[in-house]
């Protein structure tokens, strides 16, 4: 079961197989909870979001379509969307987005493999290499679901400036990641 592919585990989870379900939750719980913690900062709220993300994965896993992305991306997107819903309801002014990458994390999952850890670190490094105002804009959009208009209000800048920062930031990030993938982390 531990060697099963992500797709196979998700299929088993959605079909109600207890072993697959346990393995699926254990395989992804640290990533799901980690993302929720980063966005919400509060362990109780983050756990609520993480639980809800797995419930939705169970509910919709039977209709997961690999053409739309990998299982981890699908699950983390669900997590992010649930977190944004909770954020908007309970916390109209989220914390400074720079805290999403600069604040040290509080724990690691023991079976988190080295490759994905390096890729995550590489992406965070690429983010920090962006001009800080572009990084803030991209982080607000990605993790808080902020539109350009909302970024403009939060950062106290004109709408056009917000749009440019989001776009330039994401394009530079894409270029950095492409370079990293060619040369290695």
């Amino acid at each position, binding site marked *: 079961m531990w060697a099963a592919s992500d797709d196979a585990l998700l299929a088993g989870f959605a079909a109600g197989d207890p072993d697959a379900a346990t393995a699926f939750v254990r395989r992804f719980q640290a990533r799901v909870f*980690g993302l929720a913690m980063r966005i919400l900062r509060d362990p109780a709220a983050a756990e609520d979001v993480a639980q809800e993300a797995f419930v939705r994965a169970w509910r*919709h896993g039977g209709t997961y379509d690999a053409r739309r992305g990998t299982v981890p991306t699908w699950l983390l997107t669900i997590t992010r969307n649930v977190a944004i819903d909770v954020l908007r309801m309970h916390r109209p002014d989220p914390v400074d987005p720079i805290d999403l990458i600069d604040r040290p994390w509080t724990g690691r999952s023991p079976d988190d493999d080295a490759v994905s850890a390096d890729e995550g670190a590489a992406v965070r490094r690429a983010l920090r290499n962006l001009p800080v105002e572009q990084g803030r804009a991209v982080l607000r959009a990605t993790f808080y679901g902020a539109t350009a208009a909302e970024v403009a209000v939060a950062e106290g800048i004109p709408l056009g400036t917000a749009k440019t920062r989001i776009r330039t930031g994401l394009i530079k990030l894409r270029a950095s990641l492409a370079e990293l993938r060619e040369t290695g982390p």
Partner: protein
Amino acid sequence: MTARLTCEQVREIDAELALGTAPGDLRETALRHLEGCPSCRRAVEDLADTADALLHAMPPVDPPAGFESRVFARIAADVDTYRARPSRRRGWAVGLAAAVALVLAAGAGALGHAAVTHAPSSTSQTAALVALERAPNPGARVGAAYLAGRLLVVSVDNIGYDGPCTVRVNLANGSVSVFPGPVLRHGSGSAGITLPVPGHSVRTVTILDRRGYAMGRAVFVTD
């Protein structure tokens, strides 16, 4: 309805499209462009991959002890809730009737005068919403669309997608209107829309996901 966008105009908002944060009306027009422009679509998908990489970049954190059993307890509670729902075969019809009732009850407040003056009549039509190729469950009946006068009610049930969707309405004269759709939760949701034209000129109603993929379509019988 906004005019078509050029590639240059779409590229200006490619990042916002990839992040899913482009403003509603502009997004719908841009998505129409993407449907017919492979190079712009590739550019947006490329940036969407970058946005996805960001999601993966947050460090994992072990949840508190007992997390796993709490997830399973929550799923068990969810199973009980699902068992209490109307059967799937009738689900979409029940959902639509409820959605229409809610919209009409909201009446003048929610949708304006049109909803009240164009109540269900002999000229109203209903069409099944069928999941399309890109949906997780193609061919399945995933809801319904109801037309009465200038009122369009769309009810979606178990389309296998969560989040904001867009409703695209194709008219008999070939023109297209797009509207913000419901925010789907548990793959379901409904919305009422006041059309700028009489409902009998509607030919198809399509539900698009946040990236512009057509998920489901209802086809209305021609006059």
